[in-house]
């Protein structure tokens, strides 16, 4: 990466390059940095339409409010539950890669790979629509369950607060499982075939080959992704949870991100909303950096 690029007369700086970069840097500044400066709103009693200089300075008032807010506690609990389920499910893509790899190269393998990866490119709105078609009270799965005597139509999955955690986690897996397994497929493809032959000479069957050759080759990728997952657990995003939230599922589905949305954009309590996201951002960046440090130790080089 240290190779000299650029024009032949090296050594001197060319300011033309800087001028050409300025418009792009300005865009980055305006759309990524200015919002960070916007954190200052959390120290003021911000009223929309009023200049920040005319707003009352309240210091850490809003941050103190976070500590007393039971909703924050509940949102944190929900975020944690989703994170724990998600973390427990991190080996799934690896397992899929192993099982997929055992299939003979051919149309079946191609079929499975194609269609398990596809949902990753489908928007959450469409997934919500599909889930409605399947799991709403008049959905086909609900009707099937009723017929089999496994449930009743008035209690559909979409409106069940108890089912929120595993149902939402299931949807995430449905969307991302195939996609996440690609990186492991690549790791498997990178394994030297001689390793398998050596293992076979030593009398290892298919199963033992998978355990002693395939699995270790994927372990590094797995550990790194696992740690980054932990580091990222506060960043759940809004889309999925906002879509699936309704009056029935609200208590369990409201993760921290969704709670800031409700406070900030629905209740228009901008300052408090910003205060929560400031705390979230700081905790989250600390976790990500810590995760990166751990991953660096394991892999010998930084992930980010």
């Amino acid at each position: 990466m240290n190779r000299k690029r650029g024009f032949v007369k090296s050594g001197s700086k060319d300011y033309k390059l800087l001028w050409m970069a300025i418009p792009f840097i300005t865009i980055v500044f305006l759309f990524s940095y200015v919002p960070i400066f916007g954190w200052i709103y959390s120290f003021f009693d911000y009223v929309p339409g009023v200049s920040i200089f005319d707003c009352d300075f309240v210091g850490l008032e809003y941050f103190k409010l976070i500590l007393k807010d039971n909703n924050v506690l509940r949102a944190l609990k929900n975020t944690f539950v989703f994170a724990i389920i998600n973390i427990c499910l991190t080996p799934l893509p690896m397992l899929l890669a192993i099982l997929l790899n055992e299939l003979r190269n051919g149309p079946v393998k191609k079929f499975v790979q194609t269609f398990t990866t596809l949902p990753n490119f489908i928007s959450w709105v469409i997934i919500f629509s599909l889930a409605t078609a399947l799991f709403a009270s008049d959905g086909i799965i609900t009707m099937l369950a009723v017929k089999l005597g496994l449930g009743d139509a008035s209690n559909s999955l979409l409106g069940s607060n108890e089912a929120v955690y595993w149902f939402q986690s299931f949807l995430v897996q449905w969307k991302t499982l195939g996609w996440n397994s690609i990186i492991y497929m690549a790791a498997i493809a990178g394994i030297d075939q001689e390793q398998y032959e050596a293992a076979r000479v030593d009398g290892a069957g298919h199963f033992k080959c998978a355990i002693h050759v395939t699995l270790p080759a994927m372990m590094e990728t797995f550990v790194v992704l696992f740690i980054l997952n932990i580091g990222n657990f506060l960043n759940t995003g809004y889309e999925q949870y906002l879509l699936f939230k309704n009056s029935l599922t609200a208590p369990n589905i409201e993760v921290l991100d969704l709670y800031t949305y409700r406070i900030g954009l629905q209740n228009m309590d901008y300052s408090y909303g910003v205060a929560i996201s400031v705390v979230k951002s700081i905790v989250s960046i600390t976790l990500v950096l810590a995760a990166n440090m751990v991953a660096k130790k394991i892999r010998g080089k930084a992930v980010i």
Partner: protein
Amino acid sequence: MNKNKMKVSTSRKVFLVFDYCLMILLALICIYPFWYVLCYSLSDTTAASVNTPVFLPSGFTLSNYKEILTLKGFFPALLMSLLRTVVGTITSVFCCSFLAYLFTKDKMPGRKILYRFVVFTMYISGGMIATYIVMKSYGLLNSFWVYILPSMISAYNMILIKTYIEQLPPELEESASLDGAGYITCFFKIIFPLCKPIIATVVVFVAVGQWNSWFDNHIYTRANESLTTLQYLLYNYLNEAQRLAEQLKTASSGADMTKAMASISPKGIRMTITVLASLPIFALYPFMQKYFSKGIMVGAVKG
């Protein structure tokens, strides 16, 4: 490793049968919801409500699609989705790749600092509320540009392209620069065409992101109906249907019930919009599949 010349043991056979079944089942779980929605959209509304189109349309008809054509707001939403996808993809790919190109130049003053300045945005953001206030102060609420500008420069895509440019042989560009070509000419004539594989990957990701996005529509441009995208149109229909379904559940009188029933948008219409909104992804998927795995690999070794 599948070409084993050993005698296949019984346990291996059992495993393989199990494996094939499981994998096919998984693929079917992934694809069936789309199939069901497609069947429903091609079914006659009354026939479908009696006879659920589990595997095939019941009472095949295109009436839902015909109705969509006359549905108020459908065409503007489709056009808006296409417009933001095209404009967003072109601007973002151009900006990311040109900036990436500039960042490969040692002669750029302050290159390292500026590069870090951009990469830093991957790890920290102002959060939704602060961003909202800032967009509002820029006057971008209810403006088309709120779809384009905030996501115009993606640090991740920029890194992908930069890594790719760095492994091109520098001589290619040097000969052109001796002929007196400036940076911009070099970029368009030499670098950009050479980057086609990685550009295709980035195009796929950006275009899919733009096509699928609805949340910015929801928070920034809700009040301007002309900016409604297809995804958001679908969101509105689903939301309305859900709200009315909830009302239906709590409706006390029969009159309330029929009123709520009547105002629910037909299920067939929702299904049809769902099909149409996912159609471009399905249509372009074979093309995408060629490129995205490359993107992951490059991403894995970025630096």
